[in-house]
């Protein structure tokens, strides 16, 4: 299944891109996306572990079920304001 991934802040810088499209076998969860990202971008080790995950722009968990074409974002600790 096709999943759209978005990366922000230190994750975006380490990966060298702010988005990537991945293809995963069903059923897929954000945890699987994280594993695939770590394989593709080993430089995310040590930073993606402290990131929150959002699915379709709402906070989610690593174990939520994903659907085709979902947008999965990994969010380092926020620091707005």
């Amino acid at each position: 299944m096709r999943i759209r991934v978005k990366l922000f802040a230190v994750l975006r810088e380490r990966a060298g891109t702010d988005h990537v499209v991945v293809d995963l076998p069903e059923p897929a969860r954000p945890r699987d996306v994280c594993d695939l990202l770590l394989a593709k971008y080993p430089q995310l080790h040590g930073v993606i572990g402290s990131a929150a995950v959002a699915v379709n722009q709402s906070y989610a968990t690593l174990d939520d079920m994903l659907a085709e074409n979902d947008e999965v974002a990994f969010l380092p600790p926020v620091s707005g304001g």
Partner: protein
Amino acid sequence: MTEDLIQLQPDPIDVATLIATASDPQAGGIAVFLGVTRAEDNPAGRALIALDYEVYSGMAVRQMHDLAARTREQWPVLRLALVHRSGRVPVGTASVAIVVSTPHRAEAFAACQWLIDTLKSEVAIWKKEVWSDDTASWSKTPKT
């Protein structure tokens, strides 16, 4: 009741316009909070010149609307404006503005405080510190 004014913008914040937007004949108090880039030095002795804000715009705007709704559940808000900048914000300049009008001042202060505290802990926005030697570092501790 008019809609809340919620936005992310790269441009400087026009506070007078926000206050006008939040004014209401029933209001006894209008609280205004500005979060401003504070001057400081890093351990290497370099001066902070600006903060670069990165936003997950779709999610952040949804979250800001959700914050407005949660504020209205807690206080009798008449009008509310919540604006955050994206991109570079120089020292001394506002990165976030919150304006809340309520019938009585205590509610306006409380709502304003809750909004900035919750925005800082939840909304998908990140700040990067830009130093005078052209180095930059992601902010590790929430600061305004």
